């Protein structure tokens, strides 16, 4: 079985794709395993999704680095499947194709006004704060958040948004947050954040540890102004005990949690955005005003063409929906790798396709290697500002120029 030498192409170098490569290579040491990535840089949400102040969670990159340097898995960056190589060409060249492209777009609220300019997706915002390379979309969101922000959603992503806006310069020390984006958004000008969630406090999806981090913010007061009759559970206890502590400095940010509250419609009144809400148990609707409304209600496919997985495997969010972080996607990757192995062993999948050699001529002029990524990696770390662990390059052109310095011409 270890004699099996299939050619495997994985599309996407986020955690799901990388874990899948890792599991496959471990079971099939002689297989050719290639991970394609559209960006010049690897790691997907590990780099652009996990919050800039949660560096610890990003350290799984050490596993993937090992895999790409001495583990026999090949990284091919700056190569977009569907553009540089068609999916059909890839399927013709590789025995196994695994789609690991994730879900790049923010789900909309699905209510009137959800497309107003003041309504911003959390994924978009976090990506920008994580230094995602310049694109038309990213620039469009860089307007000051204003003084009052509403965040709709009760998951960990919503909590990341609140925390990153509310953290002071000192609290962001050691992160690799994109300071230009922070300044353009004027995060320090935000005075109040209202977090709206449909579920009760007991059923709110955020991890308790995330709520705890917010309660421990040095320059914010965290409250739950309207508590349901049954305000119970660990999250409720945490909020209550936090409210009981009163020693806070003046001029702090207010963070208010509103549970069992459903957004009904969004409108604008002059320069103000108005979110109309329905509180469980209340007949009348009520309004909340803000300057920016950030939606953190999940992810879905972007408007660009997404690769359909017919005749190939898929792994991670593109397969299961936007659920779970690193650990869950590792489990998914293990499952998919097992399925592939089973299909290879049973003969359901035949091998013999050429692999990379069949398509490399199409991308030789643009593909970047892992070694080239490491040049940029060191460059970003080297150029870190004080209090930052790196300064991410936010322009694709600059990335590529750092990775491939101009060849010196003979005189």
């Amino acid at each position, binding site marked *: 079985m270890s004699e099996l030498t299939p050619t495997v192409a994985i599309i996407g170098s986020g955690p799901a794709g990388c874990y899948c490569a890792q599991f496959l290579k471990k079971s099939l040491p002689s297989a050719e395993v290639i991970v394609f990535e559209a960006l010049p840089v690897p790691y997907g949400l590990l780099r652009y999704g996990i919050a800039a102040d949660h560096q*610890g969670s990003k350290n799984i990159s050490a596993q993937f680095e090992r895999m790409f340097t001495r583990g026999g898995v090949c990284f091919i960056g700056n190569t977009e499947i569907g553009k540089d190589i068609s999916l059909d060409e890839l399927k013709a060249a590789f025995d196994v194709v695994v789609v690991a492209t994730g879900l790049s777009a923010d789900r909309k609220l699905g209510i009137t006004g959800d497309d107003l300019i003041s309504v911003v997706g959390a994924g978009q915002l976090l990506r920008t704060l994580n230094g995602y390379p310049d694109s038309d979309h990213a620039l469009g969101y860089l307007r000051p958040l204003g003084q009052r922000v509403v965040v709709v959603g009760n998951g960990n992503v919503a909590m990341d948004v609140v925390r990153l806006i509310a953290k002071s310069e000192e609290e962001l020390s050691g992160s690799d947050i994109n300071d230009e984006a922070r300044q353009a958004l004027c995060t320090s000008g935000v005075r109040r954040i209202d977090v709206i969630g449909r579920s009760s406090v007991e059923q709110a999806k955020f991890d308790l540890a995330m709520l705890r981090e917010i309660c421990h913010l040095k320059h914010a007061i965290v409250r739950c102004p309207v508590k349901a009759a049954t305000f119970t559970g660990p999250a409720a206890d945490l909020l209550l005990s936090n409210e009981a502590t009163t020693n806070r400095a003046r001029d702090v940010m207010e963070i208010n949690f509103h549970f069992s509250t459903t957004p009904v419609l969004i409108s604008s009144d002059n320069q103000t955005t108005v979110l109309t809400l329905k509180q469980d148990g209340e007949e009348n609707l009520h309004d909340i005003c803000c300057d920016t409304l950030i939606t953190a209600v999940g992810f879905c496919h972007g408007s660009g063409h997404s690769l359909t997985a017919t005749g190939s495997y898929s792994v991670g969010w593109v397969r299961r929906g936007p659920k779970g972080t690193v650990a869950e996607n590792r489990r998914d990757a293990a499952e998919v790798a097992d399925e592939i192995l089973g299909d290879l062993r049973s003969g359901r999948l035949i091998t013999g396709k050429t692999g990379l050699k069949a398509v490399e001529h199409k991308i030789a002029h643009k593909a970047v290697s892992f070694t080239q990524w490491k040049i940029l990696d060191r460059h970003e770390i080297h150029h870190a500002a004080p209090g930052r662990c790196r300064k991410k390059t936010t322009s694709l052109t600059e990335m590529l120029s750092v990775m491939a310095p101009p060849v010196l011409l003979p005189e």
Partner: protein
Amino acid sequence: MLKIIFGTESGNAEMGAEDMVTALTEAGLEAVAVAMDVYDVEELADEEHIILMTSTYGEGELPMTAAPFYENLKTVSPDLKGVKFSAFGLGDSTYETYNQAIKSLMVLMTELGAEQVGEPGFHDAALPYSISDMAVCWANRQFIFA
């Protein structure tokens, strides 16, 4: 023979365990790594010296793959007198429940009569040191340069 029994969720503890095996083996010691989710707790009583290695998740809990190991240990409650164990934990001091999982395991093992040997090692993801480096350094101190 040193047996490293690891509980992993992200693969970090597994990588640390494998690197520890490599370092110990290179130093001439017999070492092997096995995952908690495939290890039978009934065999623990027969072990000479084990190294328990796990990360911490959620509210100070063991990873999903390791939780059954802990639960089985409690249920089966074997007499571990004569069994030596060392412990290495992976955690993140950003969180209050820093390295709680390995600590719970240490307590349980001691309650069951096992003898903890040497200093426990802790990797802190909030610090810029690699898991491999920390795990190997600790193993060197505990078993090679002891």
